[in-house]
């Protein structure tokens, strides 16, 4: 049973990677936009901005105005990545211990807490409910359970099969719903940076009062 689950984790992760890559490639069937206008700025600079300064709260108004949510999101994602890595390590029969295990536990505990917090926000705020479809709830619940099971598995050996099973489910669901943004985030940020970089809008020199 455990062996099957171990292989299942790797198989599901591989399937997920394959499907996500397929989805990204599928967008190319729409054809790339041909640009004839003369560039004014620098695409590479724009992309660097998109992944660097452009994500900072002092630069991004939405992050600044929603600092708790933005921070919660960051911690949530750190917890998710920790849980994924922990699942792959355990499946490979590598059991972190000591300080490394403590870091995994801290990240997964915080990730679960903030993930659950974001789910509550989605449920309680009318504007968020208006915006949400079933996938928004399901994705959040599934990932929260996965992270929580990882945390439990780090304490209880008996919880490891549940952790593996949830890892398989999460990996398989990734390409189907909004969790596909784990790939598309990078795609879109590159496009964002290219667009504004090429037009000479971003990056701009640091300034005050803007």
């Amino acid at each position, binding site marked *: 049973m455990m062996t099957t689950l171990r292989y299942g984790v790797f198989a599901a992760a591989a399937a997920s990677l394959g499907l996500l890559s397929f989805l990204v490639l599928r967008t190319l069937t729409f054809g790339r936009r041909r640009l004839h206008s003369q560039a004014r700025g620098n695409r590479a600079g724009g992309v660097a901005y998109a992944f660097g300064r452009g994500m900072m709260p002092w630069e991004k108004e939405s992050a600044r105005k929603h600092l708790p949510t933005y921070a919660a999101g960051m911690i949530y994602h750190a917890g998710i990545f920790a849980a994924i890595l922990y699942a792959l390590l355990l499946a490979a029969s590598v059991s972190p211990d000591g300080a490394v295990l403590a870091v995994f536990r801290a990240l997964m505990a915080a990730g679960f807490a903030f993930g659950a917090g974001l789910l509550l926000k989605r449920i309680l705020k009318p504007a968020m409910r208006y915006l949400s479809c079933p*996938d928004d709830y399901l994705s959040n619940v599934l990932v929260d359970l996965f992270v929580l099971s990882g945390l439990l598995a780090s304490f209880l050996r008996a919880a490891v099969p549940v952790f593996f099973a949830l890892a398989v489910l999460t990996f398989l669901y990734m390409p189907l719903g909004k969790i596909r943004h784990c790939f598309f985030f990078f795609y879109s940020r590159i496009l964002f940076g290219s667009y504004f970089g090429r037009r000479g809008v971003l990056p701009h020199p640091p300034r005050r009062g803007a």
Partner: protein
Amino acid sequence: MSAPPTVSDPLAEKIRALTEEDLRTILAVFREKLRAEDAAYLNTCVHCGLCAESCHYHLATGEPEAMPAAKLDLVSRVFKSHFFRTGKALAGLVGAEKLSRELVGEWIDSLFGRCTLCGRCTLSCTMGINIFSLIRAARSALAAVGLVPPGLQSTVDTAIRTGNNMGVSKENWLETVAWLEEEARAELGDPTVRFPIDKRGARILYTINPREAMFFPLSISAAGKIFHAAGEDWTFSSENFDVTNYGLYNGDDEAAGIMSGRLVRAVEELGCRELILAECGHGFNSNRWEAPEWLDRAYGFPVRSILELVAGYVRDGRVRLDPSLNPKRHTLHDPCNLVRLGGIVEEQRFILKRAVRDFVEMIPNREKNFCCGGGGGQLAMTNFAKRRLETGKIKADQIRAAKAEVVVTPCHNCIDQLMELNKHYRLGIEIKTVCEVAAEALVFETRPSAGLPG
């Protein structure tokens, strides 16, 4: 999730009469407009809602329908249902929805009536989704079956039919230029002042917003005076002078290409070396960035904003400005299409800081500035006028906070909206273009006598 459509009357009957064939046409055109970039964006939104406050519609009204993510969702539901399916069983789960008459009604109400295509939400989006380009693609699809709000469509139709969006006749245009030339000569006391028309081989072809010819001739004479002071070799075209392009807003790429193509033809036929665009935000974005794509060709000449040109004059010492001639407190409204989407960010500041004694920035400013509320074709769509004025409150508040007497903006579309906001919110401000302010600060060898028209 679905709100009942509140489509204004002009299009309600058309929506009811939509056939299945019409719906297929909308889908086909929508699909044709989408590129890989758009498909990527449409797979990215996680409904985090952090974009909400970036939109002046949502800020002013609090309506959930006005959240950028909600507007994007109207588009992505159709995309997921028709063009990027993940299986029938998952359609409801991921919010996919087939295009229907009801959804078309929501598209019109939100994508035309709750969006100025200002792009501010894109800067705030955690993912960086280019929401305005997706909304424009949906507008294109609606345009294909005649579902553009009538005021906006008639602006495009007038431009296609007459050569400019105000229907200014060639005769009136030539008379206006001759009159302004005469006035400038009198004001400057210089008989050599020329406002040339169709001058072959002139270095630059200059364009205008036809509203300048009809209602704001001071803008034209301001540019002419600056060209004169700089010793520029320039010309207007007698036929193709309209910098505006409302095809950007109704989404009709073919019409947009016809309008921008006229300016390209004028430059090439007159043998000019550069196309200089007047102070018009969407005209700049259209002709500088979008038109080469609409026309599917690169140009053999540069396309620049007059702000780039004038900033160059000042920098090179070709014109001298005296800020003491503009002693009032000035602030600057950044037009979205020129700044956030166009990249002309510092030139207007460079000019104004040398042309006025007291310059203060609005907060926020530059690419983070709020739309005035008049973009996206809103000024032409009278059926959404109430919303436009309501959402303009965000800009009105910004202006009040700046405590300026003069609001400067390099865009006649913005000027129209700011004039309405000035009246509606009793702001008590003067509104000018950058060239108007710069022209007032021009230093000539002999200063023109005061009191003369100009």
